[in-house]
């Protein structure tokens, strides 16, 4: 009762002009914040790309959990890194392996989506068993082989290959699989067989990207017979000691380490020996940009970008691209006398 509240100091008294404008100021502040966040949010939504944390891919993502392969060698994290002489073989590079996460979340597999992250999200649609590979064409013993039979025939080996994409990025991948040559020998190519054609599964239910006509489905790739018989050429069924995930071309895919990645057909259902050069998908779609051979070649630029350098995923700086992706010693002989600018 005794004291009245102390009068505030003059300095704290709001000037009347400001006092009268406080509503307007508040309103403007709210409009400012609302507009800024709406515009910012809209732009991020429109241009934020596919890098959202939600679709980082990975083994826990919808791409599915990869099962360890029964006949697989011990997983690489259990085995000490290969050292010395063994690291020098072309079959196992001693370069740092690309993270598993990156290998299963950054994929070109248009049948499962056009962006890099979509294949991992849609991979669950692929039914991986039962799976059979029809081996036909110029073969003395054509046969439709169940995948599990195939896995019984050939022991799995781990091969650590460089993988160079035509888009100028690269990875180092510890594949699990077997060389193609013994399979072809077992099927006995006829004397007329000169090429091998690999066909990917055609089923828009499992591969929803095939509903769009961005490419002519099914995806077809091919090799000359001597390329297919080369010991580096393999069929992969796993990587990092685990079975392949859909986004990497499960359950069985081609790996040709000295060629651009698109040569490695994924989710293969047919292997055909032919007399004529196969009409491969990319070389049909854009013949001036993608050739049948598609050997990694830093000297032949893609019409729209240089192939002289590449970015190894996980690294910031580009590195020079090597002729035949570093496998020149092993494979350059296959192309003796050929003009690789002409046959790119």
């Amino acid at each position: 009762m005794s004291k009245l509240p102390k009068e505030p100091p003059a300095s704290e008294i709001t000037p009347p002009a400001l006092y009268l404008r406080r509503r307007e100021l508040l309103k403007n502040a709210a409009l400012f914040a609302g507009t800024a966040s709406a515009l910012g949010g809209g732009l991020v939504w429109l241009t934020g790309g596919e890098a959202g944390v939600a679709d980082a891919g990975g083994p826990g993502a919808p791409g599915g959990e990869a099962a360890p392969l029964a006949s697989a060698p011990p997983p690489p994290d259990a085995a000490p890194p290969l050292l010395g002489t063994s690291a020098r073989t072309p079959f196992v590079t001693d370069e740092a392996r690309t993270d598993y996460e990156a290998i299963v979340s950054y994929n070109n597999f248009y049948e499962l989506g056009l962006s890099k992250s979509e294949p991992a999200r849609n991979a669950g649609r692929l039914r991986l068993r039962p799976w059979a590979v029809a081996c036909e064409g110029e073969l003395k013993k054509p046969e439709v082989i169940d995948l599990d039979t195939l896995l019984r025939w050939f022991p799995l080996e781990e091969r650590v290959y460089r993988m160079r994409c035509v888009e100028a990025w690269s990875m180092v991948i510890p594949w699990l699989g077997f060389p193609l040559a013994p399979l072809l020998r077992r099927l006995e190519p006829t004397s007329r067989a000169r090429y091998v054609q690999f066909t990917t599964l055609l089923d828009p239910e499992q591969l929803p990207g095939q509903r769009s006509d961005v490419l002519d489905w099914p995806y077809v790739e091919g090799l000359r017979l001597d390329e297919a018989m080369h010991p580096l050429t393999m069929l992969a069924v796993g990587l990092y000691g685990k079975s392949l995930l859909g986004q990497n071309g499960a359950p069985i895919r081609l790996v040709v380490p000295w060629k651009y990645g698109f040569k490695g057909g994924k989710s293969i259902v047919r292997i055909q020996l032919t007399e004529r050069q196969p009409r491969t998908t990319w070389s049909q779609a854009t013949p001036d940009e993608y050739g049948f051979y598609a050997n990694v070649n830093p000297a032949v630029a893609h019409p729209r970008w240089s192939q002289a350098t590449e970015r190894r995923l996980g690294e910031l700086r580009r590195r020079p691209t090597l002729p035949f992706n570093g496998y020149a010693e092993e494979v350059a002989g296959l192309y003796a006398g050929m003009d690789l600018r002409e046959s790119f």
Partner: protein
Amino acid sequence: MGSPARPMSPPGALSPAGRKLPWLAPAVVTGGLIPLAVLGLRARAGALGANAVAEALNQLGLLALVLLVASLAATPLKLVSGWTFPLRIRKALGLLAFFYACAHFLTYAVVDQGLDARAVIEDITERPFILAGFVALLLLAPLAATSTARMLKRLGAARWKRLHRLAYVAAVLGVVHFFLRVKKDTTEPMIYAALLALLFAVRIASAALRRRAASRRAPAGSRAA
């Protein structure tokens, strides 16, 4: 009530440009920079995916194109709707577009190419894909430099307007750059091409209407004289 009455303002214009919607341009600049902040935070968190450099390049380039098209939409939008607010943010949008185009180019030159001048020059001279983007950036530079009211006065409205039509050329080159980048699926660049075509169409239609109206008035005037 709010702002002190300006005796000079003509009755038609509600209030002079600076006073109406004082929050709008700052909000556009702030909002326009939010994607950069988000990009920076994602990069630091390692959340840009396996190929972070390519992802950053894509986002910065797309931001430049989106903002450039948005700035070009201001006049057509006003012509169609009568709203004047788009014109108040046109400059902010254009400058943001230039800012992102610079960030895009610098990311390419410094991070992607590691400041290898020879590689950059070879890219620009030998690859139409890079050349289109680079010329677009070069065209935007004088526009950014003459974006102030003082430069407008110095150049004169007519010359300034003619110069700033280059923004359309830059946007077309930006879309060409986008087209040449994609491997096969051209849906996205198509959308921007269609948007640009629409903006052109509105301007051309409105110019034609104005000419017709003018020519209708002109004979009447000449008869009177």
